[in-house]
């Protein structure tokens, strides 16, 4: 701002900071901190004190060479240590293995002299998801094979890998040396985001759908593609595939490795995008801190829901577009990123529509249409597996979406839509996202965080300024609006919120004094951290308190409190690992080797069967259904319906276990609790189409 009068500089600064006092008042006016459990903020304060202590100890420990560079490294060490303690050591170990594998594959595709390790990592992750995705129906997914391939990959690519790891380490130390305070702030924000990693897998969709793939690969070494039992079985699965890979490497269900990687990818993505938009390193670290601070960033650490991964990948994709400027210098890598986005979620089309049009125009102008074809081809091969199998099995590439067009016989001829999220929106949408968030998701007000509103002036700066930031901001604002127009669900617009906020930080970084920017970012980080409990009905009751107080048994206690059916299944698995289960009232199927069928909207035929059987008060229809499905154990809510209870009693079934309001019923005589799994086998599309000669599993 050299040469600008002081009054004008202060005036502009006041304008840029205007949202902060407004937000400050509104936070209390709208009582956004009401759900904040006292123990949660005490835990945050204790975490901060530990961080200061760790930094001090590290600073003293380095002795004469005392350098402030050790402060962020010590802070990072503390965050990693806490993650190891509360999320388990295996998670980060497997994350490291997966990272090395992906990086090794990335160096294979991108052997150029100075590529970003992050780009290589994402290309590698995309390739792993593609390779595993295309082979999912085949019985080849054995942990020993994975380890062999991993070892081979690392052995072959080690020489290319070590310089990249060394370069990443040097980059960290250089930043730590030049911007220790900023980096410590970003690490602290990331530390709050890692709270999601501490939690066991409680999310409903994870337990009802996402974990199916993991369970089947762990138990049977292939994926059944059973769209009859789970309508989302062939929906874009790259994230589920990566989680399954980490589970195979862990030998058990493992959410932490991939969730941790996505968190790192997102934080680094914000940094890289900000740098690509010509932000200073300090501003770029601020952008990373803001990304880590979004309450939803912590949420995505706690679940296999995909939008956090999308946000991270999209930021790197945006960064590559900005740097490439339409020359398509690395078409396979760009295609891999596009393929990864397609493989993560089909609605990502809304996010990549504009860049694709832009790429097309530039490829035409720059006479590099052949390279664009390579981009498209690479994207199709790398991201196309789930779409291909969806067509092959159901006839609908985006099954169960748009089924009025594709008319798959597996689903009613309607367009799948969740009508809960049609609340509409007007010009106050951005405000409502923060202060009336409950309208847009199963959440509480404030869980979208305050970053977007606080940083809007920065976004305006970037749009007014004639730079690349303008186009990135307009692209994501348009894509986010398109997504929100289709369905008013706040989780789906997180990628837009994350990237627009990043642009906002860049805008403020250009206009504000660095110290003022630091205060703004610190305020956002603190407020967002305090809004983390507002995320879900579970987080609002502070499960972290239990984890901290009970340590090793905390996860089980938390699971008992929030996912009774999962606890029942886990117990039953110990008691009868070969059981076949029908979950009547709760569609939780995870953790039981793919041997659970659930009556829910995810299974339209069984859902119909339920309605059909329930109107027969004699229980005969229920017996007919149970005879066909053939479960040895049935999970029902207590008290069960008249018809079902009558059927179970007539079949000599009795309750053998219970948890909360749920009961497990099985035959009175343990010797008669057997099952053939014929029902699952008949619905096994992989077996039906790809290996019909296999015997029963």
């Amino acid at each position: 701002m050299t040469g600008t009068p002081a009054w004008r500089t202060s005036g502009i600064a006041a304008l840029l900071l205007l949202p902060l006092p407004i937000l400050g008042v509104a936070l209390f006016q709208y009582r956004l901190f009401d759900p904040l459990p006292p123990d949660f903020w005490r835990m945050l304060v204790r975490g901060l004190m530990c961080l200061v202590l760790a930094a001090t100890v590290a600073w003293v420990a380095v002795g004469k060479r005392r350098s402030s560079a050790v402060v962020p490294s010590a802070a990072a060490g503390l965050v990693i240590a806490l993650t190891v303690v509360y999320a388990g050591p295996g998670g980060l170990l497997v994350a490291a293995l997966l990272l090395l594998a992906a990086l090794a594959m990335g160096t294979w595709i991108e052997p150029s002299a100075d590529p970003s390790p992050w780009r290589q990592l994402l290309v590698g992750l995309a390739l792993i998801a593609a390779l595993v995705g295309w082979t999912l129906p085949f019985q080849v997914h054995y942990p020993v094979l994975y380890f062999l391939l991993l070892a081979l990959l690392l052995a072959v690519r080690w020489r290319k890998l070590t310089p990249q790891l060394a370069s990443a380490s040097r980059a960290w130390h250089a930043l730590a040396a030049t911007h220790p305070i900023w980096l410590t702030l970003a690490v602290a924000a990331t530390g709050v985001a890692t709270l999601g990693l501490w939690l066991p897998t409680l999310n409903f969709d994870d337990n009802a759908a996402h974990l199916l793939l993991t369970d089947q690969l762990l138990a049977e070494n292939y994926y059944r593609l059973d769209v009859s039992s789970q309508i989302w079985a062939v929906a874009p699965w790259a994230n589920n595939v990566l989680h399954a890979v980490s589970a195979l490497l862990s030998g058990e269900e493992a959410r932490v490795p991939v969730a941790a990687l996505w968190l790192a990818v997102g934080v680094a993505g914000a940094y890289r995008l900000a740098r690509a938009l010509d932000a200073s390193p300090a501003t770029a670290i601020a952008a990373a801190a803001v990304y880590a601070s979004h309450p939803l960033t912590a949420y995505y650490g706690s679940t296999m829901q995909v939008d956090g991964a999308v946000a991270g990948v999209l930021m790197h994709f945006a960064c590559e577009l900005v740097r490439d400027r339409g020359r398509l210098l690395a078409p396979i890598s760009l295609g891999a990123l596009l393929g990864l986005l397609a493989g993560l979620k089909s609605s990502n089309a809304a996010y990549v529509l504009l860049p694709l049009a832009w790429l097309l125009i530039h490829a035409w102008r720059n006479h590099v249409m052949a390279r664009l074809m390579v981009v498209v081809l690479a994207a199709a091969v790398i991201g196309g597996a789930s779409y291909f199998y969806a067509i092959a099995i159901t006839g609908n590439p985006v099954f169960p979406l748009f089924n009025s067009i594709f008319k798959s016989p597996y689903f009613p001829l309607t367009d799948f839509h969740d009508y809960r999220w049609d609340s509409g929106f007007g010009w106050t949408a951005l405000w409502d996202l923060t202060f009336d968030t409950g309208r847009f998701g199963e959440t509480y007000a404030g869980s979208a965080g305050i970053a977007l509103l606080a940083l809007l002036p920065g976004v305006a700066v970037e749009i007014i300024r004639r730079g690349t930031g303008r186009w990135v901001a307009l692209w994501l604002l348009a894509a986010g609006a398109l997504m929100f127009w289709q369905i008013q669900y706040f989780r789906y617009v997180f990628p837009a919120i994350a990237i627009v906020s990043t642009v906002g930080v860049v805008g403020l970084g250009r206009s504000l004094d660095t110290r003022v920017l630091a205060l703004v970012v610190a305020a956002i980080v603190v407020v967002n951290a305090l809004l983390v409990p507002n995320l879900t009905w579970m987080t609002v009751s502070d499960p972290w308190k239990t984890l901290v107080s009970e340590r090793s048994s905390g996860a089980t206690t938390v699971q008992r409190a929030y996912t009774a059916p999962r606890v029942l299944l886990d117990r039953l698995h110990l008691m009868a690992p070969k059981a076949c289960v029908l979950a009547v009232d709760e569609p939780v199927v995870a953790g039981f080797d793919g041997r659970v069928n659930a009556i829910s909207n995810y299974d339209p035929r069984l859902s119909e069967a339920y309605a059909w059987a329930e109107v027969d008060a004699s229980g005969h229809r229920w017996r007919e259904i149970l005879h066909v499905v053939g479960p040895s154990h049935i999970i029902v809510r207590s008290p069960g319906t008249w018809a079902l209870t009558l059927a179970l009693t007539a079949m000599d079934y009795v309750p053998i276990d219970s948890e909360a309001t749920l009961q497990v019923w099985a035959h009175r005589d343990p010797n008669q609790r057997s099952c053939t799994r014929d029902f699952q086998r008949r619905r096994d599309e992989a077996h039906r189409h790809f290996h019909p000669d296999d015997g029963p599993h």
Partner: protein
Amino acid sequence: MPLESRTLRVCLLLGLVSGCGPVVPPVDGLPMFCTPITDDASVKFSVEPAAIDVCKGRSLIVANVSWDAPQTRDGVRIEIDSKLDLERRVFSAGDRAGSLPTGAWVEPGLCFHMFDHDSGRELARREITAAPCP
């Protein structure tokens, strides 16, 4: 693990995006149900009368079944089952359009299912109900 499905083999080889032949869900053993489904917009299917006036002592009637499914390749197959008798019987097969009277065996709870003869996809279903007594 031989690829026995011709349809899928062709799909794999050519990588076609669409038009890989008929998609037929597995027969999982569950009965056919008569809960309403969304009809394929291109088909017409009616059973008249659709309700039986049981209050007047009538329980078995003759109904007229009409159908028109112009987009089917090999016409339609109409099957019936009942809440009382789950075994499905073929009522008519082959024609894309037509009209056929039943015998005097139509009763409340009977369900008419119309399938695309070629793909096996259920296009529409109609349930005979008991008319409410005044």
